[in-house]
């Protein structure tokens, strides 16, 4: 494997030798970064249980996580909701679980 190992210290203005991108010739100095990550603007489709999903699921992940899923059997959605509660510690009330599973099975279940 080809490697270039250099003992040079990084100094502002020293160009990187690189076959990579055109930008690779720019000097490397690490600059502090301050960015803003966008909010989701995708909504869940209406249906029975949508409020339970909205209240319990989208604080950890936006609606896109659900919208992009394929159709899966209800047992798979039960297991997913159990995983979110038991492993990832999502604070979901017992009473909300049937609504969430029912919604996912309806929106993302075999037709």
């Amino acid at each position, binding site marked *: 494997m080809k490697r270039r190992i250099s003992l040079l210290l*990084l100094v502002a203005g020293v160009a990187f030798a690189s076959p990579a991108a055109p930008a690779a010739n*720019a000097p490397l100095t690490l*600059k502090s*970064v301050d960015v803003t990550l966008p909010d989701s603007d995708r909504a869940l489709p209406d249906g029975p249980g949508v409020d339970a999903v909205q209240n319990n699921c989208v604080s950890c992940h936006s609606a896109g*996580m659900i919208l*992009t899923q394929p159709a899966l059997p209800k047992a798979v959605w039960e297991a997913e909701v159990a995983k979110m509660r038991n492993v990832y510690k999502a604070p979901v009330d017992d009473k909300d679980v049937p609504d969430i599973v029912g919604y996912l099975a309806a929106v993302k279940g075999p037709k």
Partner: protein
Amino acid sequence: MLTRRRLLAGAGAGVALGLPLGPAAKAAGAAAQSVRLPLPGGPDERPITTDFPQKGAMILQRTRPPLLETPFEVFDQGVFTPNDRFYVRWHWAVIPQSVEVDKFRLNVRGQVDRPLALSMSDILALPRLEYAAVNECSGNSRGLFQPRVAGGQWANGAMGNALWTGVRLKDVLDRAGVKAGAVQVRFNGMDDPVVSEGPDFMKSLAVDHARDGEVMIAYAMNGQQLPLLNGFPLRLVVPGWYATYWLKMLNDIEVLNGPDSNFWMKTAYTIPDTPHADMKPGQANVPMVPINRLNPRSFVTNIKAGSTVKVGSPISVRGIAFGGYTGVKQVDFSSDGGKNWIAAQLGKDEGKYSFRQWQARFTPAAKGDVTLMVRCTNSSGEAQPAEPNWNPSGFMRNVIEATPVAVA
């Protein structure tokens, strides 16, 4: 819905890059605001977004925490994936949005003689290392699994290749002095769980692997500092291993005197301990092990599935290949669905962990439907399998890719 600004931005990027147009865009006759991924049974439509900082046009899988896929045509533009098109994958949504270089410290602690809190100047003063390596998500191509499985529904764009620059993990560990009896080294980053009791994302490597002189703490990719979403200011580079080990925003290294039993090592990111990590849906009692080495893959990048080529005219086909944990020995191409194969010509060798370009020529002899196929064999003699693997997490897909085209 898309705002007018995003729609216009998406349209510009789409025209320039030749993105496939979504149905809404087709109906409007102009703007490329979505892409269709070849996911069996759907849903297959994804927005193209330019809303993420330091990122160009990306396929939006999930906004928070971000899952951004590299549009596949980027892989036709060269073996190095530009930083602003490099895919993005985060587990937890608490991601620092500002990092001050002067205040940043990398802590090294645990079973060491001298715990360290290294500043960026300390790190930049260490001997420098640079090599090209593919970073591929364990679940790249998960959306192509059949039967389908839950999780991020990626097509083939959760991978990228960059020239990484940084320091050897070994040099940092030696400076701290690893104590006798150390077993694993655990890595943690600045991201945090949304729920305080949730498992913080951490990964570990065996001490010998961590000290192999190849594993890198990288401060640059493709000659530039890392985009924040790719791990600024430091990320671990574990060449030849799946990206789950390439910890982003790395700020904590802990040397352990026993095997790491944290959730992300013991339970998550495990694969069947079988050839190609393959098992049957519902199969019981399959031994599982932590995911580890990348397998070989190859792709056609200049001809899209479903396109039409001209009978009797020579056609140049090209693409990328990688050997995974070792280099590319050979790439073979078939224009008849795998009945006959010819050796492709390999492009410049950028190192054994890099993408490598390949090209081949063929002349379609008769009208009809044909299937183009490409197969990589790595330097250890491991070739891509003809049948797709399956496992419940959708990991390590590397079946020989098939590209159906019409000859007319």
